[in-house]
């Protein structure tokens, strides 16, 4: 009965419900890195998923949107981050395809989707070498 409470109340909740499933996939990797553009997924989702991730998870966060950058008083121009080696899996956490597409081109890699991307929904993918 108690187990049934969570999905049942789903109708009243809104936002970030994809996070638990996404975090489970990331936590399964032995030494994971999560790369994400905060202006795409928003700070609330980053902070929400931080409750679900194990301490071993590292996040490499960028803020690409120029308006968000100037609001956050970040004056230098943003760059697509270089992915350092030493991580077992590199995950991309996104909401649109913008950032992930740029990242994949730069890394000569492709994104292997781990959840179905729907419009305005959070998704996670894995960066794999071509």
């Amino acid at each position, binding site marked *: 009965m108690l187990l049934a409470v969570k999905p*049942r109340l789903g109708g009243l909740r809104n936002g970030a419900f994809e996070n638990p499933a996404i975090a489970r996939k990331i936590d399964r990797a032995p030494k994971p890195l999560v790369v994400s553009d905060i202006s795409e997924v928003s700070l609330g989702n980053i902070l929400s998923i931080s409750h679900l991730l194990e301490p071993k998870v590292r996040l490499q966060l960028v803020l690409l949107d120029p308006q968000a950058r100037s609001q956050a008083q970040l004056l230098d121009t943003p760059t697509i981050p270089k992915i350092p080696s030493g991580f077992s899996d590199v995950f991309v956490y996104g909401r649109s395809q913008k950032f992930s597409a740029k990242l994949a081109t730069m890394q000569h890699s492709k994104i292997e989707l781990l959840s179905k991307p729907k419009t305005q929904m959070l998704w996670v993918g894995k960066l794999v070498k071509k």
Partner: protein
Amino acid sequence: MTLIKSKLRFLVVVLLILGLFFRFVNIDKKFYWYDEVFTSLRISGYTQTEVLHEISSVQFVGAKVLMKYQQSNPAKNFGDTVKSIAIEEPQLPPLYFLAVKYWAKLFGYSPFSTRSFSVWISLLAFPAVYWLCRELFRAPEVAWIAVGLLAVSPLHVLYAQQARPYSLWPVLILVSCASLLRAMRLQTKLSWSIYAVATILEFYTHLFSLLVAFGQGIYVLGIQGFRLNKKVVSYLIPNAVSLIAFLPWVGILLVNRKAASGATIWADIENSRLSLVNNWAGNIGRAFWDFGLTYHARSIYLIALLAATLIVLAIVGYAVYFLCSHTRKQVWLFVLAVMAVTALAVVLPDVILGGIRSTKARYLFPAYLGMQIAVAYLLATKMSALCLAGNGNCGSSDSCTVNGLCAVGCC
């Protein structure tokens, strides 16, 4: 009559125990969602801008570092909490956030702690709805049934477990309404002062409290007419005081209105009008019983779920009609005015301009509370009618009603 009363009391106690159980169990098992994270951010005293600046200036962050922005910080005080809300989300008055920050200083900043504040506050809704119903109706049975309905209402249980203002707000709506009726009855300085304090607290908890006050105003106007008699003057004074007390936050909201419209842009998503109606129906149903009617529901159950929801809707609609046709103007106009002003103010912009604000049950608490009170009145009246029809011998008829009540309230 006494037999049915004692049975009703027993049923309400059972519903209260169930309600307590649903509120306290698994507080930290459900995941801490988007809006709750913002509660933690606000009580930490950080602004979103500061966090964005810090976390995108470093190469890596661990999940633990992100927790820093959701915990206590010796460099940030209550003023920083107010400041961060005033700058970034001025549509949210700060009372709830200050209260939960104080709570967090005593009991910690974990989701368990911030949510348990909401759970304890939600319990105050029981005496509050009891008080309001006693002010409205002579029969104490209405008040008992209303307490039972709130105890197991999925809507109330859900928000009782969320680190957001929607457990405190309904309590203050009920207290403000009850204290107004009491003050109009007693006409003493003390009773009007209690109404003023309750209303100021309500304003500082949620902006839509202004709609509740507007509904109350329509009620007073409807009862007293346009005469400026003693009752009207003594009503106007505490309202003027409350509005003046709330002016500073209105000023902040006007100055930072750009931030407010940016923070609420999600609500302006264009949505089909039909899906709005779907959502309203589902939400009204969930004020009483959660049938599990969501988009994820299996299609074979959908027809049954839809039928069940429609039955609840019909009961609610009949209950509001029944209230309006069976009670004095002093009663029905009050419930109807508070309910309708909020409902129309939230629903009409969505229907005319497009938006999804009205699909969020939390903004319509004043309307749902009115529906719950109407249903409580309907059940109480039908119950005593059945009892009278049984010629005082309530043996068979009352157990039937009590079972019916149980079906509405339970599960």
